[in-house]
C-alpha cells in the first residue's frame, strides 16, 4: 500500500489555521489553506490515502468520492512541489 509522508526539509510556518511554505530553490512562497493544512499535518508520520480520507470524512461534511478525488489531487500537487514523499 502506498504511504505518504512530509518532506522534513521543507521550511514552513503555521500562521493561524494556514501554513506558509518556502520553496528554497525557486524562492517562491505558497500557502496551504485550512483544509490542506489538516491533510499536511496527517502526514507527519507516514499514512495511506484511505486512512486520510476516513479522518477527513469525520472532520468535514463531504462524501467519500469527492473527498478521495480532492485529496488525491492535493497530494499530486504536493508531490509536484516536493513537499511530500511517496513510500511504496
Amino acid at each position, binding site marked *: 500500500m502506498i504511504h505518504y509522508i512530509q518532506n522534513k526539509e521543507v*521550511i514552513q*510556518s503555521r*500562521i*493561524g*489555521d*494556514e501554513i*506558509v511554505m*518556502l520553496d*528554497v530553490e525557486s*524562492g517562491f*512562497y505558497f*500557502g496551504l489553506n485550512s483544509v490542506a493544512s489538516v491533510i499536511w499535518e496527517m502526514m507527519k508520520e507516514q499514512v495511506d490515502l484511505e486512512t486520510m480520507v476516513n479522518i477527513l470524512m469525520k472532520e468535514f461534511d463531504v462524501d467519500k468520492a469527492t473527498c478521495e478525488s480532492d485529496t488525491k489531487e492535493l497530494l499530486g500537487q504536493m508531490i509536484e512541489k516536493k513537499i511530500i514523499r511517496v513510500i511504496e
Partner: protein
Amino acid sequence: MFYYRSFGLTISSEIYFPELNPIDLLLTADIQIKYGEISNNINPITGFISGRLIISPQLYFLKIEGIATYLVEGGKIITIKIEDNADLNEVRLFCLSNAFAALLHQRGQIPLHAAAFIHENELVLIMGESGAGKSTTLAAMINKGYSPFSDDICIPYFDASDQSWYAYSSYPMMKFWADSFTKVNIDKVSEGRKLKSGLDKYGVYFHKNFITDSRKIKLLIMLEVDSQDNKVCFREINGMESFEKIQEQAYRKEYLEYESMLKDHFIQSTELAKSIKTILVSRPGNADSISSLVEGIGFMLNTKPLASSDSNLL
C-alpha cells in the same frame, strides 16, 4: 577619522557623513568605512556576478559609473573608491542605501523598507510600496507632534528575554519630494538640502531627536493606494495576507537569494506577521487623502482598543 552610531552599529569612517549620528572617539567600532582601491577581478564561489554588481553571502561589489565603486566584506568593512568629479552627496547616498543593505545582510540582519515614529515610547512602523506615501505620512505625523524614528529603513530583531520584536533606526535623515517637504514642521527638523541635482527631492535631518537605541515594535501600518476607492479604509490583516505584504518589504529584497538568506527572511517575515498587529490602510491616489489617513492613525492610536476590525474613515 569620524565616528558614528547608526543602523544599531558603531562606525568608524574616513569619510564624513552628515547624514549619520556622530559620537565621540571610539577604540573599536563594529564597522569601518574607508577609501581604497578595489580590484575588478572578484570571483566569489556563489551569487550574482556581473561587471557592475556582485552579490554573494559575505562579499558585495557595486560600481556606479561617474560616482563610485563599493566593496562590502564580511559585514565589517566598506571600501569606497570615489571617481573624479563625483557628486559626494550621491556617493554617500548609494553607500547608505545599497552598501549598508549588503553589510547588514552580511551581519545576518534583514532590514525592512519602513518609516517609523514613536508612540508611547514604542514604534509604529509605516510600510508600503514606493509611492504609497510612507515619507509623506511620516512628515504629517511629525506635524501632529509625533517624534520621527526612521524614514526609510528599520532593522528588526527578536528579543528572546521579553519575547518581543524590536527595531533599530538607520540614520537621522528624511527624504521628501519638494511639495511634501514644504508641509513639514521645521521645528522638529533642520533645514533641508537637495539630495541630487536635477531631482526635486530633499534631505531633512533630525539629529537632535534621533534615537540610537532600539525600541519595541507596537504596530505596523501597511499603506496601499487603491484608485478604485474614494475613501481611506483601515482594516486589520492577519495570517497569510499579513505575511505576504510584510515579506515584500524587505529592503533590497532582491539581494537575499544571492546571499543565501531566503530562509532567514521567511522566518523573520512569518514571525513578524504572527506577532505584530498589522493594519492595512488603503487610500485613493490623491495627495489630499494623506490628511484623512493621518487623522485616522491618530484616532486609532489614541483610542483603545480598536472597536472592530473594519473601520471606514472618510
